[in-house]
């Protein structure tokens, strides 16, 4: 059976060019970038070259790029590393209500365990937050505002530059989780006026286990881990040279085909939304039509739970998800859809289909062919046919 991967917001297949770029650093060039000898020097040059490339692709200075293990770690450093050191003067922070848990949970932990004051920036039915609301929530004591660039579950792209400006007007720092957008949408940390930005390699056809945190020059961030001088002490630990090289290669590749990909994939995804809505009655689309991470389609079929649809598609070789892979297996509906005000029963039916670079029209057609009968059968199924009560 030919398998079809439509879960690119969870992760992406590593591009062959990326693998090729990494291989020398998993083999002959194995040195520790911190070593003084020739092995170390080779590794260090590769690491710093990767940093420079990555920096230039988001319009940052290389000294502003810190390598981490990925999006979650970058988010954690951004949230803890700034707010705690400012806590005395600025004990308040604001994070988006539909943020990834890598931002939400640290924020809630800061509130519970460190007594910081937390406000959640609400989202509307399409997951947009308003800059006006943000302005109302901002205080002179706000240390950090963190709002993700594109939501991983529904794909909503926020007006980050306007929010950063609002935060700066009150002297607060602005962080964005751009894990879903770097390499897919144009990113310019200077034009967007960002202080901190989390991003990662594996969402853009790079390897897992490597990510980065952009920290604008002059912004102070405390480390979460101690024990080494790597990444200027802000993220100690032996450098992941092969990962960094792969990350740079993936971003290079993305920069080349980013615009074309976005247009093509956006058309496919819009067509998917239209066709599903036309073929399956009572389809609710949660993703916005515009200002959307083009590849993302989040929808529910009223009266149908998401899980059996996903499992049946898996049995047909088609991979989609219910939302974030980081929370799958939970019975509670997605916190993103809850924050958007989606009714619980409908939210439990949420399906996230995320297309990618290799997705062809025929792939969308295959999904459109398989999906209607599955939904129809599940709707026809009467529950409670077994056991005694």
């Amino acid at each position, binding site marked *: 059976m030919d398998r079809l991967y439509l879960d690119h917001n969870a992760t992406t297949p590593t591009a062959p060019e990326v693998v090729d770029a990494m291989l020398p650093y998993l083999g002959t060039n194995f040195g520790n970038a911190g070593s003084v000898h020739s092995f170390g020097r080779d590794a260090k040059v590769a690491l710093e070259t990767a940093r420079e490339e990555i920096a230039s692709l988001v319009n940052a200075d290389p000294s502003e790029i810190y390598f981490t293990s990925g999006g979650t770690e970058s988010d954690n450093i951004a949230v803890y590393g700034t707010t705690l050191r400012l806590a005395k003067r600025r004990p308040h922070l604001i994070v988006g209500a539909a943020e990834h848990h890598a931002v939400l949970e640290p924020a809630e932990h800061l509130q519970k365990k460190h007594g910081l004051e937390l406000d959640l920036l609400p989202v509307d039915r399409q997951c947009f937050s308003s800059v006006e609301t943000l302005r109302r929530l901002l205080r002179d004591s706000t240390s950090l505002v963190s709002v993700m660039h594109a939501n991983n579950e529904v794909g909503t792209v926020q007006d980050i530059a306007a929010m950063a400006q609002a935060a700066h007007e009150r002297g607060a720092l602005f962080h964005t989780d751009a894990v879903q957008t770097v390499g897919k949408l144009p990113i310019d940390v200077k034009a967007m006026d960002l202080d901190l930005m989390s991003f990662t390699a594996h969402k853009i056809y790079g390897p897992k286990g490597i990510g980065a945190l952009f920290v604008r020059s002059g912004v102070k961030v405390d480390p979460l881990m101690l024990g080494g001088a790597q990444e200027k002490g802000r993220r100690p630990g032996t450098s992941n040279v092969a990962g960094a090289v792969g990350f740079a290669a993936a971003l290079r590749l993305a920069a080349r085909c980013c615009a074309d990909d976005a247009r093509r994939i956006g058309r496919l995804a819009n067509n998917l939304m239209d066709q599903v809505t036309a073929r399956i009655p009572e389809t609710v689309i949660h993703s916005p039509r515009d200002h959307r991470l083009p590849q993302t389609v989040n929808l529910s079929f009223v009266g149908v739970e998401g899980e059996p649809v996903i499992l049946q598609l898996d*049995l047909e070789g088609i991979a989609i998800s219910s939302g974030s892979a980081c929370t799958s297996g939970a019975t509670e509906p997605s916190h993103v859809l809850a924050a958007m005000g989606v009714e619980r029963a409908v939210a439990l039916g949420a399906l996230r289909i995320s297309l990618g670079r290799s997705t062809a029209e025929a792939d969308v057609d295959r999904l459109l062919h398989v999906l209607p009968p599955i939904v129809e059968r*599940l709707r026809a199924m009467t*529950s*409670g*046919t077994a056991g005694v009560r």
Partner: protein
Amino acid sequence: MSAQRGRVLVAMSGGVDSSVAALLLKEQGYEVIGAHMKLWDFVDVGGDIHRDGRCCTIDSITDCRFVCDAIDAPFYVLNLSAEFKETVIDNFVSEYRDGRTPNPCVRCNIDVKWDAFLDKATALGCDYIATGHYAIIEQNDEHRWVIRKGIDGTRDQSYVLWGLRQEALARTLMPLGSMTKKEVRALAEKYDLRTAAKPESREICFVADNDYRRFLSEFEAKRGRTFAPGPIVDPTGRVLGQHRGTAFYTIGQRKGLGIAHPTPLYVQEIDVSRNRVVVGCNDTLYHNTAEAENLNWLAFRAVEADFEAEVKIRYLHTPAPAIVRPLADNRVSIDFSDPQRAITPGQTVCFYDGNTLLGGGILSSQT
């Protein structure tokens, strides 16, 4: 993908039995899908999170994954914790509060495995569900689905299966019923299944430390509820000591009464309405008759006349001959030929004709 014999969802605990059940069905030509039911979380039930190897822990799920990978079957974790909490755990607590001693595994079978899980199987397009129970499902002459004891006498699990309805039995496969545990382990070893040497787990899965009193206290404390202490009395009403709450006692219990007495004392009655625990000597635990309710019959539609059966009143009880008489409201009275020790309200009662399970119910009283 071969599906000549249909698609089957195998309930996998992570133990050797369900692993071998999946393996056998695969060999027999079924399209096997493995599924682990996630029923509870340590956060909700308390206990020692570091004790591993049990059902519903990550280690068990990993074991299931490896077994399914080895037999080339898809594997899913199905979260049924809401259903489990609403039916099994809440019932477990309320039964103890009502002075009864529940069989949570029986409730789980009726309300979760052969209800919610079966629904999940239907939703996945499965023709059958399968489990690793040591019991045999077959149709009798009247075309009714009945359960026979597994051939491994020491492993027979028919006692926990009395609650299954005909429609559920018609869609259930139990491939281990005609095997011995030894054969099952040998097969697991032959196929190098990583669960081959896993030890048995026979305690209540969500009471990981096997201390149901600790569980009840903690579970209720989280909801702001407590247990009322009261007197322990002898059959004449003389107060001998204090109990911590009637829920912490079960009929036949001797240990933990905290009473110094020249002869051994046993709990013979739990009187919730007067908040008393009545104790007596061993002889007072024996009764000739009992009543049962909430009956489910496998071998026939309903009981119309008295019949003889061998009656089993707890998991490790040897079935005893008795006359079963129908009463109103889906109840029966049971007259044992010989008095039986510690007939316990809340416990499962099963009625057998030789190796065939005729039906079962819940003991409501001893008389």
